């Protein structure tokens, strides 16, 4: 048994992608991005400029709330920069990184958070894409995560395209995909996961037949996670 969980390596894969000084945003229902951003700021201070729905700018929450638009995510903020400001920032080309979740992700970098079945008479009405339909095209890059990696979540084709375009990476419990010219390709497979396991869990064909291993979490990375998320909020999407 490894010393880290899928939630640990997912949070760290997301954190590793963040750069000091860039602007980064997460929205509602985004516990892993929240943990990843705070871990990145701790691992390489001051880290990215952290924006969220509460209007927080580089907030330093005293505890991590289960809701990622909780007022606690405004604590210690230097100023107020609200959701409309953030969308505007993205629209004018000033948002470096947006974290976006989705119910379905297909091999053509398309995301669905809207419906399963027809839009007007859905089999399942999903919550909706929140900011994704504008952030995915407008942000300089979009980082996607999904804690379920199965053929329903990664189908050959999404039921509905809520958003598409600027996806850079997709992080799952099994692997990391990257966008190669509009197609998701394997970038790395997490330690302990086999290629066949990824292929079987993915509803679209994988172009490669192998991929390098995702670097295992370092002691420093695990310490950063423990420091910023002692209550393991990062596990909540695995419940």
């Amino acid at each position, binding site marked *: 048994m490894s010393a880290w969980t899928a939630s640990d390596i997912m949070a760290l894969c997301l954190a590793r992608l963040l750069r000091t000084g860039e602007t980064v945003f997460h929205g509602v229902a985004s516990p892993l991005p929240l943990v990843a951003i705070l871990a990145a700021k701790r691992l390489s201070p001051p880290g990215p400029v952290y924006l969220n729905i509460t209007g927080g700018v580089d907030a330093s929450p005293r505890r991590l709330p289960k809701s990622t638009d909780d007022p606690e995510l405004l604590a210690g903020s230097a100023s107020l920069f609200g959701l409309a400001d953030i969308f505007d920032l993205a629209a004018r080309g000033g948002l470096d990184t947006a974290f976006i979740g989705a119910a379905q992700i297909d091999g053509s970098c398309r995301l669905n958070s809207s419906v399963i079945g027809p839009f007007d008479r859905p089999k399942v009405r999903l919550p909706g894409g929140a*900011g994704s339909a504008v952030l995915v095209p407008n942000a300089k890059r979009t980082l996607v995560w999904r804690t379920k990696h199965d053929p329903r979540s990664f189908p050959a084709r999404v039921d509905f395209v809520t958003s598409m375009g600027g996806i850079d990476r997709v992080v799952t419990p099994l692997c990391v995909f990257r966008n190669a010219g509009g197609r998701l390709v394997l970038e790395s497979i997490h330690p302990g996961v086999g290629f066949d396991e990824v292929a079987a869990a993915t509803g679209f064909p994988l172009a490669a037949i192998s991929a390098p291993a995702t670097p295992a979490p370092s002691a420093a990375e695990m310490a950063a996670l423990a420091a910023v998320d002692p209550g393991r909020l990062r596990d909540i999407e695995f419940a």
Partner: protein
Amino acid sequence: MIGMSKLVGLAEAAAMIPDGAVVAMGGNVMHRSPAALARALARRGARGLHFVKTAAAYDADLLCACGCLASVSAGYVGYESEFGLAPHYRKAVESGSVEAREHACYTIITALRAAIQGVSFLPVKGLEGSDLPAARGWKTVSDPYTGAVFVAIPAIRPDWAVIHVQEADRLGNGRILGPRYEDVLLAKASRNVILTAERVVDRLDCAIEAVDISGFMVSAVVAAPGGARPCSCAGRYGIDVPGTRSLVESPVGSAADAHLSLYARNDGGAL
């Protein structure tokens, strides 16, 4: 009118909103929603309301459970990770009784801005590749100078905005602590504004920049301590987990009477 108290009771405020009205609600997901006023609408048996919010949870779900809504215009309707999907909203949409007018949160903001600015539409940047414009019947507009094409978002001018604040005065000035979410936009975009407030004072006594809602835009003020419950209210209380579960776990499609009873005392304190 300035100088006159706008204080009314919760039921009285709910009665000001007629069936069929376009109603925007403040707060975001499970935070500072005008929950007591949503329950008051449910208690009076409101019907055919058109609900507007960037990201909703309890308020939209409750009003769906009680059969109050005809449509929901929102970017997101759900409880986030802890409580999952909004079951009553989901059921109402899947059964066809409520129309899900899905937006991106930004297109809700754009639609409200159009109303604020007195124009019937605004162009928005984004939505490339999305199926939403076709699904929603959104058209495009061309920049007459450059030919650049944007999706045109029709204005949403709510008949009523209902906003829960920590503090209001009798003249309608409202103060929000913590996140403002889109509440200031909602107030400006709407024809009429109702404030529900944890505390009502004769006159707000704080720095001018701490007053988020200008009283002259407000029609009614309701003293509603606990008025956001089971949602959180920054600086006052957090999310009421059992109260939320009581709605989420109500039989889908029920009128949620048991849930409304649970908050009778909370809401009655405001009458």
